[in-house]
C-alpha cells in the first residue's frame, strides 16, 4: 500500500510538471487557435535568462518576476515579428513557423549557454516532507502549488476579465471580433505574451527537477501535449488534471503491470490517451461544439 501511495504521489508531482507547460499550450491555443510547438523551447530560453540573472547575483524572487516580464515581452516581440507576417496563411504554415521557432530557440540557447546541464535553484526548502510513510520533495509541493495558482489566474482571466473574453472571441472568430471592435492582432500578441509568461513560470519550476539544458523541455512538451489532449485543449483545468492523470497512470503501469514494465511506459500512456479520445473526441473536459459551416 505504501508503495502504491508513494507512486501516486510521485506521479502527481511529475504530472504537475506536465501540467505547468500544458497550461501555456492551452493558453496560446485559447488565445490564437494555434498549437505552438515552440512553447517549451521559449520556456527553456526564458529559464536561461533567469539563470543568467541569478548568476549575476539578482535575488530569486526579483529574478522570478523579472523573467516572467521578460518572457512576456519576448512573446509579444515574437508574435509581432514572426507570426504576424504569416497570420493569414493556412494554419499548418503557422505550425511550421512555430517549428522554426523551436529549432532556433534550441540552437541559440546551446550556442550561448552551451549544452552542458546547469543546476537551477528552487525557491522552496530542500528538505523533503514526510507524510506518514510517504515522502514528498518540498519543491514538488511548491511546484504543484504554483501550477495551481497559474491555473486559477488563467481561469479567472479568461472567465472574468473583458480582455480575457475578447481574447477568446478573437481566437474563435477573428472576423466577427473585428466587427465588434476588438483589435484582433493585438489580442493575438497578448496571447503570445501571456503564454510565454506562463511558460517561463513552468520553466523555472521544472528546471530545479530536471536541471537546465537546452533540451530540457523536449520530453516535457511531449507529455504536456498528452496532458492537454487528454484534458481537452480548451480547458485549462482539464489540462492540469490531464497532466496528473498521465503522470500517475504512467507510474502505476510501470510499477504494477510487470510484463510491460518501464520499457513500454510511454506507449501505454499514449494508448490510454488515444482510447480516451475515442470515447471523448475533444478530451475529457474539452467543449464539444459543432462548428456550423
Amino acid at each position, binding site marked *: 500500500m505504501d508503495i502504491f501511495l508513494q507512486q501516486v504521489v510521485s506521479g502527481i508531482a511529475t504530472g504537475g510538471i506536465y501540467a505547468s507547460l500544458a497550461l501555456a499550450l492551452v493558453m496560446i491555443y485559447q488565445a490564437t487557435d494555434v498549437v505552438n510547438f515552440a512553447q517549451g523551447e521559449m520556456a527553456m530560453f526564458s529559464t536561461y535568462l533567469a539563470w543568467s540573472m541569478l548568476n549575476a547575483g539578482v535575488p530569486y524572487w526579483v529574478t522570478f518576476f523579472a523573467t516572467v516580464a521578460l518572457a512576456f515581452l519576448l512573446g509579444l516581440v515574437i508574435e509581432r515579428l514572426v507570426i504576424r507576417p504569416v497570420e493569414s496563411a493556412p494554419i499548418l504554415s503557422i505550425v511550421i513557423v512555430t517549428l522554426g521557432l523551436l529549432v532556433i530557440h534550441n540552437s541559440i540557447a546551446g550556442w550561448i549557454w552551451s549544452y552542458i546541464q546547469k543546476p537551477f535553484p528552487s525557491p522552496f526548502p530542500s528538505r523533503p516532507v514526510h507524510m506518514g510513510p510517504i515522502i514528498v520533495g518540498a519543491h514538488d509541493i511548491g511546484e504543484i502549488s504554483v501550477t495551481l495558482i497559474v491555473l486559477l489566474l488563467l481561469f479567472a482571466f479568461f472567465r472574468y476579465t473583458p480582455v480575457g*473574453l475578447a481574447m*477568446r472571441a478573437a481566437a*474563435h472568430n477573428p*472576423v466577427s471580433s473585428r*466587427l*465588434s*471592435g*476588438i483589435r484582433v492582432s493585438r489580442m493575438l500578441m497578448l496571447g503570445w505574451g501571456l503564454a510565454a509568461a506562463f511558460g517561463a513560470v513552468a520553466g523555472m519550476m521544472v528546471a530545479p527537477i530536471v536541471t537546465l539544458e537546452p533540451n530540457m523541455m523536449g520530453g516535457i512538451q511531449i507529455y504536456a501535449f498528452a496532458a492537454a489532449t487528454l484534458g481537452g485543449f480548451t480547458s485549462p483545468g482539464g489540462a492540469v488534471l490531464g497532466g496528473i492523470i498521465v503522470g500517475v497512470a504512467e507510474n502505476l503501469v510501470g510499477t504494477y503491470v510487470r510484463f510491460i514494465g518501464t520499457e513500454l511506459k510511454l506507449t501505454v500512456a499514449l494508448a490510454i490517451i488515444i482510447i480516451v479520445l475515442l470515447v471523448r473526441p475533444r478530451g475529457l473536459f474539452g467543449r464539444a*461544439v459543432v462548428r456550423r459551416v
Partner: protein
Amino acid sequence: MSAILEVENLQAWYGRTQALHGVSFSMEPRGITTILGANGAGKTTTLRAISAMIRTAGTIRFDGARIDRKATEDIVALGVAHVPQGRGTFMELTVEENLRVGAWARRDRSGVAEDFDRVYRLFPVLLQRRRQLAGTLSGGEQQMLAVGRGLMLRPRLLLLDEPSLGLAPLVVQEIFAILRRINQESGVTILLVEQNARLALALADRAFLIETGRVVMSGASAELTSDDAIRRAYLGY
C-alpha cells in the same frame, strides 16, 4: 437634416478582382435603407467596404467625418455595428459572453447594463439561454443573438447582412418585427442587405438596387416596389 452616411464613388476589390465600380448613396439618420440586387451584385461587398474589411477607393463619410481610411475597429468604435452574413456567432462562447463581446468597444458601464436589459427584453429567448454556448442555439436564435450583439454597441448605424438567410418564414417575420421596433424605439439607422426583396422593401423606407457593382436605381421603397422591372426581377409577380 444632414446625412449620417454618405458614400461617394465607392470602389472595392477582392484581391485583384474589382467588385464595386463607383457606388454612391447617402442615408438619413433614423431611417432604414435596403440594398437590393442579385447574388454577386455587390450588396455584401458594399457593407464590407463601409466596415473597411476589404480594399476600397472613394469616400465614405459617417456623421460628416471621413471613415474610408480608418481601420475596422475604429469605425466600430464610432458606432457602426455590422452584423455579418452568417451571423458571426462566437460558437464557443456563451450567449451572454457573445453579447458582452458586442459591447467591447464601449466604455460606459452603466449603459452596457441597460443595454443587456434592453436586448433581453427584445429577445426573451436569449435571457433564457444566456448561460448556454451559442453554438447550441438554433439558427433563428443565433440570428437574434447576432442582432443583439450589434445592439450592445448602442450603434448609431446598424449594418445587417442577410438576416433572413436559412431561417423559417415565421422566425424571419419575428426578427423583422423586432428590427422595426428597434428602429422606432431607439432611432438606430439601419442599412439592410436582404435577398428577400419583398420583406426588405416592406421594412425599409428607402432602397437602392445594385447590379454588377453599380447603383442602377434608388428611391423610396414604395417607388421601387411599384417599379415593373423590380417587380419582375426581384419580387416575382
